[in-house]
């Protein structure tokens, strides 16, 4: 059980809360406190829109422990409209064929479940193709 560990990340996991550098205005996700662009301290919170497009993607057929139930699943590098790239699963794909450049938006989904029915369920961001209506 790693409750405090996942609790600490709740703002970024559920709300895509990152940071903006007060010195050079670089937008940072995930938050990292030291700006990789200018080296200055960057702790100002910044809310990302959750919109972006697929930079690359793959389907995982050999999942690590904890992810077997969902396999095969699709993981993408999503380039957010604000600039940063984020690693996230794609979801709600249906029959649609994802491609590089497909517009996507953030949704909150179950990422993994630890152990049996008493194990902790971890939620976080995934992305789905835009234009699929309310979930």
């Amino acid at each position: 059980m790693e409750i405090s560990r996942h609790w600490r990340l709740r703002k970024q996991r559920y709300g895509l809360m990152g940071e903006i550098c007060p010195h050079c205005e670089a937008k940072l996700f995930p938050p990292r406190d030291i700006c990789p662009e200018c080296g200055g301290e960057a702790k100002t919170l910044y809310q990302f829109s959750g919109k972006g497009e697929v930079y690359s993607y793959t389907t995982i057929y050999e999942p690590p422990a904890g992810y077997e139930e969902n396999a095969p699943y699709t993981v993408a590098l999503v380039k957010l409209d604000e600039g940063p790239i984020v690693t996230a699963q794609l979801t709600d794909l249906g029959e649609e064929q994802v491609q590089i450049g497909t517009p996507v938006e953030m949704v909150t989904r179950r990422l993994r479940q630890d152990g049996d029915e008493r194990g902790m369920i971890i939620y976080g961001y995934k992305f789905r193709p835009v234009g699929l209506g309310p979930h």
Partner: protein
Amino acid sequence: MSSDVVIAGIGQTPVEEHWKSSLRELALSAIQAAEADAGGLRPQVLFVGNMLAPQLSRQAHLGALIADFCGLVGIEAFTLEASGASGAAALRAGYMAVASEQADVALVVGVEKSSDMVGAAVDEALATAGDSDHESVQGLTPSGQAALLMRRYIYEYDVERAAFAGFPLIAHANGAGNPNAMYRKAIKPELYANASLISDPLNIFDAAPAADGAAALILTRPGLLPPNFPNRLVRIAGSSMATDTLALHDRPNPLDFKAIRQSIERACEKARITPLQVDFFELFDAYSIYAALTLEAAGYAERGQAWKLAQNDAAPAALSLQGALPISTMGGLKARGNPGGATGVYQAVEAALQLRCQAGANQLPNPRRALIQALGGPAASVVTHVLEAMD
């Protein structure tokens, strides 16, 4: 002022699934071979390269364990971990200890025992090399990272997936001549074309197999060698390490393995050579896309073009044993096998065999200089060495 550091002893176990041998037994086997090869030199320090023993073998604290089991109780000993570059990091630690005269004789061992766990447990352990909070939590694995890069490469440079076949074909052809390799059989392009997917577009021939193995080196300074040392002397002419962002998504251009360029520049500068002045390159072909990105970052090929060096057309491929820049001369990670934290030490042992002219069926014609390089993750850690024959 640092002194010359030479490789006095080399040892390795075959790379395979060693069901009958434990982590410590594998290490002992490689160390005994290296000690015998070095003519009785006794080390004062032991550096262990290992990637995943705490997860895969439920065993940390390998310095004391291996020193104890190998009859070396009392000496300085600890582990270096840099994911897939762990063994190479241990070599670099050994080099620095001997060059700085903190030690006269250093023992370096890389060891990994993957086969005590299977399937999803191994993939879970391997995924700890990524960013746990932002990559692994999404179910991304090292193979998945390579697949993301491979798909983007195919898209940006408009190449066929089959273009990558050249890398495993060369590795398997070379593995056929290495008695310690996991796979000792050449493969045909049709086999690659029909192979099953691990993580599309990456198939099983694009990925090196996890395996068990141990390799060891004994390092010293030339003046400390035993009299009548029988082998051609190989010195470490350059050594360097560089890092990139841990997560792939934090890089401005994920297809640019920038730390590879930095690490090679630093190692070559110390060796006072350019990268073009090496006779072969033991690169880190954990995935065929990594071989391509390595050659491009190092400057051996233009962006999007490295796969062409692996094609056998009218003439043998540039990267084959008969070519201008042979790679993976004993099979590389793909055919020799990828024993995790031991891999960087295997590369040094194999390069030393080539430079000593003891590489058997795969011997290059009197090579003088080798570049060897190990990667942790998608080149988040890069350790590079230049090895040179001394006579």
